[in-house]
């Protein structure tokens, strides 16, 4: 059994914070420069929070911790997120 799932596991929690589905956004890894959709990240969810790692270099690109009534989103491992919008 794999120890992680793909980035679609982030959809519900991210939708609660952002108005758009961020799993289709294109992110760039701060560690290796890999560019790919958030859905391609490797998500470790058997943990105190969601930890999304780059599929190329395994560095942490996104962390999301949920507590009752609040959440923390850490994107220091992400250079940028390119988010498609309806024009």
């Amino acid at each position, binding site marked *: 059994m794999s120890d992680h799932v793909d980035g679609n596991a982030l959809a519900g929690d991210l939708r609660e914070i952002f108005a758009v589905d961020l799993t289709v956004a294109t992110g760039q890894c701060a560690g290796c420069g890999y560019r790919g959709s958030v859905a391609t990240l490797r998500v470790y969810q058997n943990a*105190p929070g969601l930890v999304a790692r780059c599929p190329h270099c395994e560095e942490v690109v996104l*962390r999301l911790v949920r507590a009752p009534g609040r959440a923390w989103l*850490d994107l220091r491992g992400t250079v940028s997120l390119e988010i498609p919008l309806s024009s």
Partner: protein
Amino acid sequence: MPIVSPGFTGRRQSPDVQLPPGQYLTEDFPVLTAGPTPRVPTDRWEFTVSTEAGQKHTWSWQQLIELPAEKITTDIHCVTKWSKLRTRWKGVSLDVLLEDVETAADFALVHSYGGYTTNLPLEDLLDGQAWIAYRYDDDDLTPEHGGPARLLVPHLYFWKSAKWVRGIQLLLEDEPGFWETAGYHDYGDPWREQRYQGD
């Protein structure tokens, strides 16, 4: 005569077992991980204590297991709300490892193979409160549970008991670790339910 029988709690819990607030009892040993499980062969394993003055004290695996070890039976409490009672470990007390280390530090940042970090006050590593554990339940500690060796600091939430430990950095100032920079409490006392920042 008790008004509420333990049967109504819905959890398997002996009435004389006291758990920290918000915790439930588990009999298995859940595996939590924030990344791929490092596999560190003991012939390449090393443990380093570095001081604020830049001094390094390093132990090989052989040197570690030749140090006086203790058997520890203790309850553990995970911030994800499970608690496990009377877990049995073997390891070397941090009092032994830090005995000859000269430092004025008040804080420690623990580093793991794989990049994980966690912080705690240095005093919480001393006086029989913390160990580098390498046996669990009379077996070698498996990689899934942090083997070949993990930190064991059972009086704090278990995220502080870093798996795959490779070193301790002694610091004059507190430096938050992996979960402590992502919303979790800086100290993490389960009996005061210090789960998140501000708790």
